[in-house]
C-alpha cells in the first residue's frame, strides 16, 4: 500500500538524507523507529506529501504522490490520510466539534456535527463538544486529535511521536486507542517514534 523507491531529501543547508526502500502492506500497523535527528519526521512528511523529495518516488494506494501537483496532494491527503502529532494542535477560535467538522469540510465532505457528537461520546468526550479546545485536559485533547484524524475514515493514520510526552500507563492507553480506532475504520496505522516502549505493541517495525 505504501511503497518508496530510492528516496532522498536534501535540506537547505546541504545535509542529505537517503532512505532505504519501504514497503508497507494494507492493514499492517507499522512502527518506524529511530534515534532523534535521524530524519524520522522528514520521512513521515515525505510520505504524507507535506514535503517533496529531492529524488526517488513514493506510491501510496497505487498513486504516485511524488508526481502529483501540490493541490492534488492536499486533496489526496485530506481524504486518505489522518495525522496525529506529539502535541495536539487545534484552531483556537473554534470549539471541539467545529475543529473536527473543519477536517470534514477541508477534505471536501459535508460537515456532520451529529456524527461527530456520537464519535465524541465513544471516546468518553460527551459534553465536551462545545468547549474550546484549550479548556480540555491534555489527554482529552489527544483523544480529540485522534478523532479528528479518523473522522474522514482515512486509509492511513500517520502518528508522529504520539507518546513521547506521556507516562507508561498513558502510553499504553493511547497506543491501544490508536490501534482500536484504526482497526475500527479499517485504516493502517503508521507510528514514527524514538520511543522504545512501543516496540512490543507492533508486529511490523522499520528501523532507521
Amino acid at each position: 500500500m505504501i511503497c518508496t523507491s530510492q528516496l532522498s531529501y536534501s535540506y537547505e543547508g546541504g545535509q542529505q538524507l537517503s532512505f532505504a526502500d519501504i514497503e508497507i502492506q494494507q492493514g499492517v500497523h507499522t512502527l518506524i523507529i529511530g534515534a532523534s535527528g535521524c530524519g524520522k519526521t522528514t520521512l513521515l512528511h515525505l510520505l504524507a506529501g507535506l514535503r517533496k523529495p529531492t529524488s526517488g518516488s513514493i506510491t501510496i494506494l497505487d498513486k504516485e504522490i511524488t508526481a502529483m501537483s501540490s493541490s492534488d496532494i492536499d486533496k489526496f491527503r485530506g481524504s486518505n490520510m489522518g495525522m496525529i502529532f506529539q502535541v495536539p494542535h487545534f484552531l483556537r477560535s473554534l470549539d471541539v466539534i467545529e475543529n473536527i467538522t473543519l477536517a470534514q469540510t477541508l477534505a471536501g465532505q459535508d460537515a456532520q456535527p451529529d456524527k461527530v457528537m456520537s464519535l465524541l461520546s465513544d471516546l468518553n468526550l460527551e459534553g465536551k463538544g462545545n468547549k474550546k479546545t484549550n479548556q480540555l485536559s491534555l489527554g482529552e485533547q489527544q483523544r480529540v486529535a485522534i478523532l479528528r484524524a479518523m473522522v474522514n475514515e482515512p486509509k492511513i493514520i500517520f502518528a508522529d511521536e504520539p507518546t513521547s510526552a506521556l507516562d507508561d500507563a498513558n502510553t499504553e492507553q493511547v497506543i491501544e486507542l490508536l490501534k482500536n480506532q484504526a482497526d475500527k475504520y479499517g485504516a493502517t496505522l503508521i507510528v514514527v517514534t524514538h520511543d522504545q516502549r512501543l516496540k512490543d505493541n507492533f508486529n511490523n517495525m522499520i528501523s532507521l
Partner: protein
Amino acid sequence: MNLLKLSWKNLLSKPLNTTLSLLLFGLGVGLISMLFLLEDQIQKNFEKNLADVDLVIGSKGSPLQLILSSMYHIDAPTGNISLGEIRPFLNPKHPLIKSALTLSMGDSYKGYRIVGTTTDITDWYSLQLAQGEMFIHNYDVTLGASAARDLQLKVGDHFKSSHGLVDDDGLEHDETPDFIVVGILESSGTIVDQLILTTPQTYWHVHDHDHSAEAEETVSSDQGDDHPDHDDHSDYDDHEGHDHEGHDHTSHDHSDHDHASEQEDHHGHSHAEIPKPLIQEDDDGSITSLLLQFKGNNFQALNMGRSINENTEMQAATPAIEINRLFSMMSSAEYALRILAMVIIFVSGLSIFISLYSSLKDRNYELALMRVMGGGKSTLFSLIILEGIVLAILGYIIGIFLSHAGMYIIGKVMKEDYRYDFTGGYMLPNEWWLLLAAISLGFLASMLPAIQASKTDISETLSRG
C-alpha cells in the same frame, strides 16, 4: 464549518484588533457617505425651490443673501424696497416679465417665517390647499404643511406675530390684532411648507401699529383715498421722482415701544378688509423683494438685471449664478473633508493589513494544520482574503449606519434652525459604489497577508511544533 464561518470566528477571537479596524473603517466610510448625503440633499433642497425664478430684485447688499432669504428663507432678509420703485415690474403688460411675485419678510411666529405675498404664489410653487382657503383679507394667514403641523395650528386659530426671525417673546407685536388661520396647504416639498403666508398689506398694518405716530397718516391713506392716478403705472420713470422720506417703514426703532396710549385709536380700524392689488397701492408701501419669471431668456431680459444694478437703488440677483457661487464655496470645504475621509479609510485599510499580517505569526501552525487536513494553498489564501472582506463589509455597514443616523440628527437640528428637511432614510447610488470600493480595499489590504499565508511551509512549521 465553512471558510466564511471560520473567518468570522477568527475575527471574533481577536476582538480588540477587529474592533479597531471596524471603527476606523466605519469612520472613513461614514464620513464619505455623510458627504454624499449632505451634497445630495443640499442640492435637492436648492433645486426644488428654484420655482423657475429668473431674477430676484431687492435692496442693495449681498446678492447671495438676497437669494438665500427670498428663495430659501435661510439668511436674514435684506432691507426693504418701495412699491414705487418696482411698480413697473408688477404690470401684467410688461413685455419681458411673465410673472412677478412680491415678498414681504422680517416677522415670524415661533421661529416660522411670516411672508407677505400674493396668492400668485400658488402658481409659482404648485401649491394645493389641504383645508380652508387662501388668505384674502389682511391678517388672514395660510400655513405651509410643516408649519401647521409643527405649530399645531388649525383653521380658525389666532396668534400674534413677533418682529424678527427668532422666537423671542420680547419682540412680540403686542398691540397688533391677531392673525387668523384661514387655510392650510398640502405639503409641496418646497420651502413654502415651512412658511406662514399672508397679504403684503398685513405687514404694513403690523408695523403701523408699532409706530403709531406714522400710522395715522398711512392708515388713512390705505383706507380712504383711491389714488386713481396710481391705477396706471406702466411707466417706471414717472415715479423716479417720488421720494417719500416721511414714510420710512424700513427703519423700526424698537427702543421706543411706548404706544399704549394710542392703542385705543386703532381698535376701530377694520382689519378684515380685502386689500387692493399691490399695483394700486401707494408708492411708499414697501416690500422686501420681488421674484421674477421672464417670458423667455432673450437678450433684453438678461440685461434687465444689469440695468437694475447700474441705474437704480435696488439690486437684481440671478439665482443660478448665486447658487453656483455658493456650491463652489462649499465644494472646497467638501473637498477638504473628502481628503480627510480618504486618509481615514487609508489608515483603516492599513490597520486591516497590519492586523491580518501580525495574526499570521500566531496562526502559522493553524494554517499548516489546515493544509494537513486537506486544505490547499488556495484555501488559506481565500480564508485571509475573506477575513479582510468581512471586516470591510462590516466596517461599511457601521459607517453607513453612522452617517444615516448622523443625517437623521442633522435633519432634526436643521429643521429647527433652518426649517429645512434633511433625511437619512435612503441610500444613494454613490453609496453602493462606496460598498464596492470598501470591498476592494478589504481585498487589497488582505492580499499580501493572504499570499504569505498560502506560502506557509507546512512541514517546517509542523516540525517546529
